[in-house]
C-alpha cells in the first residue's frame, strides 16, 4: 500500500535523503574546522588522557573548568609559574567550552574526569553571576553529541530535558552532527550574509530580556545540581574550588550559593576584584585581555589555599565531615594576595 501511495515520488524523497546524508558526512568531516569550540569539544577525551598520562607522580593535577571566561582569563603558564614559587609542582589542563555553564560542566566532568584514573587532584570551576545556578542546558543538542552518554539519561531528565520535544531533539542530536551544530552554522551564515546581524540581534536580545524580566517574578535561585556536582567530584577524591571570576561590572554572589559553600565546605575564592584589573580590560564587558588574564592567573595562584590542597588524601574534606571545612569566601581579598599580584 505504501509503495502505491508514494508512487514515483520516491525519487524526490531519495534526492532529499541523499542530500541529507551528504550534508551529514560533510559536517562530520568539517565540524572541527567549523569553530575552535567544536575542536575543543572533540578534544575532551584527549585532554582527560593528557592530564592522566603527562602529569608526573609528584605533580598536583589541576583542572580548570569553565567557559570562554576561563579560556581567555586563565593563563596556564603564568598560573603554574606563580603556583610553583614555593616549590610545589603542578600540572594543569583546561576544559572551557564556549557559552556554557554548570549544566554542561556537570556532564563534561562526569564523563571525562569522574574516574579514579583520570580524576584531577584539584578542580577549579571559574564562574560569574548565575553560571552555577540550576538551569537547564541552553545547548541540549551539544550535550547529546559531545558531552553525554546513555548513563546520563536520568540526570538529563531531571535537569535538562523537560518533555517529549526536548527528548526527541536530544536523540536526534546524538545521532546527527548536523543537527547538533545547527546553531553554529546558523550564526556563521547569518553573520556572513546579513548586514549588521550581530549588532541587531544584540538589540533584539536586550529588548526581549527586558520584556522577560518584567514578566517573570523573581524566585530565589537553587543549586541542586551544584550539590550533585560537588558530591560526584568528592566521590573521586577531587578538591573543588569555585572561583568567582572578574568581569567589567561587579556582580553579587547569591546567598544560596554561599549556603552551599557553607554546607559542603568547599572553597570559594572571590576574585571579583583583582588588584590591577580595570573595567577597560574587558573589551566586551566579560572577557579579559591577555594582560588582565595574566594578572588574574597570578592572583588566583596566590590566593588558593595550597596548604590544604596539598594535604594527603586522608586529610581531605568530605561531605560527611563538613565541620572541618573552611566556610566562607577565602583569602582572595587578603592583603597578602593583593600584594603578591600588584607587583
Amino acid at each position, binding site marked *: 500500500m505504501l509503495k502505491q501511495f508514494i508512487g514515483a515520488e520516491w525519487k524526490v524523497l531519495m534526492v532529499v535523503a541523499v542530500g541529507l546524508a551528504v550534508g551529514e558526512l560533510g559536517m562530520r568531516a568539517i565540524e572541527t574546522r567549523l569553530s575552535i569550540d567544536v575542536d575543543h569539544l572533540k578534544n575532551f577525551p584527549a585532554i582527560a588522557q593528557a592530564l592522566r598520562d603527562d602529569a608526573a607522580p609528584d605533580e598536583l593535577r589541576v583542572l580548570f573548568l569553565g567557559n570562554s571566561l576561563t579560556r581567555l582569563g586563565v593563563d596556564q603558564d603564568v598560573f603554574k609559574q606563580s603556583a610553583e614559587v614555593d616549590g610545589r609542582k603542578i600540572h594543569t589542563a583546561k576544559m572551557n567550552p564556549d557559552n556554557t555553564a554548570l549544566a554542561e560542566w556537570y556532564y563534561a566532568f562526569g564523563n571525562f574526569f569522574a574516574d579514579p584514573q583520570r580524576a584531577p587532584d584539584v578542580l577549579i570551576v571559574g564562574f560569574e553571576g548565575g553560571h552555577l545556578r540550576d538551569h537547564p542546558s541552553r545547548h541540549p543538542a551539544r550535550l547529546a553529541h559531545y558531552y553525554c552518554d546513555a548513563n546520563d539519561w536520568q540526570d538529563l531528565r531531571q535537569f535538562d530535558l523537560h518533555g517529549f520535544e526536548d527528548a526527541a531533539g536530544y536523540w536526534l542530536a546524538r545521532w546527527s552532527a548536523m*543537527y547538533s551544530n*545547527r546553531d553554529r552554522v546558523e550564526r556563521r551564515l547569518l553573520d556572513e550574509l546579513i548586514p549588521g546581524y550581530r549588532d541587531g540581534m544584540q538589540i533584539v536580545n536586550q529588548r526581549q530580556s527586558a520584556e522577560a524580566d518584567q514578566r517573570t517574578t523573581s524566585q530565589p535561585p537553587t543549586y541542586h545540581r551544584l550539590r550533585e556536582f560537588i558530591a560526584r567530584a568528592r566521590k573521586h577524591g577531587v578538591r573543588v574550588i569555585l572561583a568567582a571570576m572578574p568581569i567589567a561590572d561587579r556582580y553579587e554572589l547569591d546567598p544560596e550559593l554561599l549556603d552551599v559553600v557553607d554546607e559542603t565546605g568547599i572553597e570559594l575564592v572571590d576574585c571579583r576584584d583583582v588588584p590591577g584589573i580595570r573595567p577597560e580590560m574587558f573589551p566586551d564587558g566579560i572577557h579579559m585581555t591577555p594582560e588582565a588574564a595574566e594578572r588574574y592567573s597570578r592572583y588566583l595562584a596566590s590566593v588558593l589555599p595550597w596548604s590544604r590542597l596539598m594535604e594527603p588524601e586522608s586529610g581531605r574534606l568530605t561531605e560527611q565531615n563538613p565541620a572541618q571545612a573552611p566556610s566562607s569566601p577565602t583569602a582572595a581579598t587578603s592583603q597578602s594576595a593583593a600584594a603578591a599580584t600588584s607587583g
Partner: protein
Amino acid sequence: MLFNSFAFWTFYLLLFVVYHRLRHRGQNVLLLVGSYFFYGCWDWRFLGLILLSTIIDYSVALGIAASQSSPRRRLLLAVSIAANLGILGFFKYYGFFSGELERLLTSLGMPAMLPTLSVVLPVGISFYTFQTMSYTIDVYRGDCRPTHRLLDFAVYVSFFPQLVAGPIERASRFLPQVLGTRRVNEDDFRTGLFLVASGLFRKVVVADNMAPVVNAIFSTPYGELTGAEVLLGVYAFAFQIYGDFSGYSAIARGVARWLGFDLMVNFRMPYFADSPSDFWQRWHISLSGWLRDYLYIPLGGNRHGAILTYRNLLLTMLLGGLWHGAAWTFVAWGCYHGLLLCVYRVFDQRTPAGERPQGNAVHITRVVLMFHLTCLGWLLFRAESLTQVAVMLETLATNFTMTPLATMTAGLLVFYAGPLMLFEFWMERRHEPLSLLNVHWLLRGMAYLYVVYMMLFFPPPVPSEFIYFQF
C-alpha cells in the same frame, strides 16, 4: 501539540499507520478519538465545549430537517446560533465588553462593579463555532442534508488538521468526505508532501524567524524607535502572520490529504493582490467566504443601493475584525478594511472597464500599493493599543533613521521571506498554486532539500505558537 513539533509528527505517524489499516467506520472512530486527543493536549477541559457544540448542532439540524413549520425551523436555528454565539461571546468577549461597559458607566458618573471573571480562551473556538454554525444554517437553507450519524458529525466538527486554525470548512463540502469512503493515491501523496513542506517552511523558517524581531520592535518603548524600525517591523509582521497562518493552513491541507480529505484552499498568494476585494479573495478565504455567505449577503449585499452596500461592507468587515479578538485594535483593523473596500468600490464603479489603465507597470504599482495598504492594516492588527499605532505612525513620518536593528531586519526579510515571495511570484505567473508538482522530480527534490536544510540550519530562536490559535 503544534504541527512543527516532534510530538505532532509522532502522533500523526501512529494515527496514519493505524488509519490506513481500518475500514471506513473504524477510520472515523479513530479520527474522532485522535482529534479529541489532539485537542485535549492543549486543554482537556475544553473538550466539553466541543461536545456541547456538536450535540446542539447535531440535534438542531435534525430538528430543522424534520420540521415543516417555518416558525419552528426558525426557532431551532435561533437556538443553534444563540448557543454557538453564546459560547463564543462568553469565552472570547465577556472580559472585553464587561470592562468597556464598566469604563463607560464610570465615565458617565455611574460606577458599576460588574462581575469580573478570568476566562481562558479555548484554543480554536472561533473556528469550530463558525464551522458548526454554517452546518445548521446550511441545513435550514436546504443547502445541505443533515446527517443522522453523530459520530460522523462529530468528526466534521473536530477533524484535527483544521480544528484549531481552519480552514473553516462548510458542511456541504466537507461532510460528504466524512460520510463517504476515502482512498489515497500517488497524487494525494505528492500534493500532501508539497503542502506540508511549503507549510513548514512558511511557519518554521519565515514566520518564526520574523517573530523575535517583530516582538522586539513592538515592545520597544515608543520614544526609542526610529521610522525605519517601524516600517521594517511592520513588513516583518506582514510576513510573520502570513507565514504563520498560511503555513498552518497548508500543513492542515497536506496532512488531511494523506488521510484522503481535500480541505479548501485558504490562501492564494495574497500579497500579489492588486485591490482590496482581490486581497479578500486571496487571504483567509474560508473566513471571507463565510462572512460573505452568512453575513454580507443576508444583510442585503449589494442589492439595495450604494449606501446600504457600503453599510453592509463596513458591518461585515467590522465583525470580521472582532472575530479575530476582543480589542479595539481588531475593531479598527476591521473598519479599516471595510473602508478600503468601500473606497475601492467607489473608484471601481466610477471608471468604466474600458477606461481603466492597463499594463504591467500599472499592475505592479497596484500590487505594491495594495501591499502597503495591507501593511498599514497589520500595524493596527499587531499594535497593543491605538495609542501605539498613532505613535508608530508619527515616528515613521518624522524620524527615519537606519539603525543596526533596521538593517538586520531588512536583511532577514530578504533572506527568509525573499525566496518565498519569488516562489509565489513564479506560481502567480503560472496561475497554478501547485506548479511545483509539474516540474522535473530532480528539481522538486532539490526544492524540498532546500526546505529541509533551511528548517535544520535556521531554526527560530524560540519556537512560537501559531498566531491564529488565539482567535
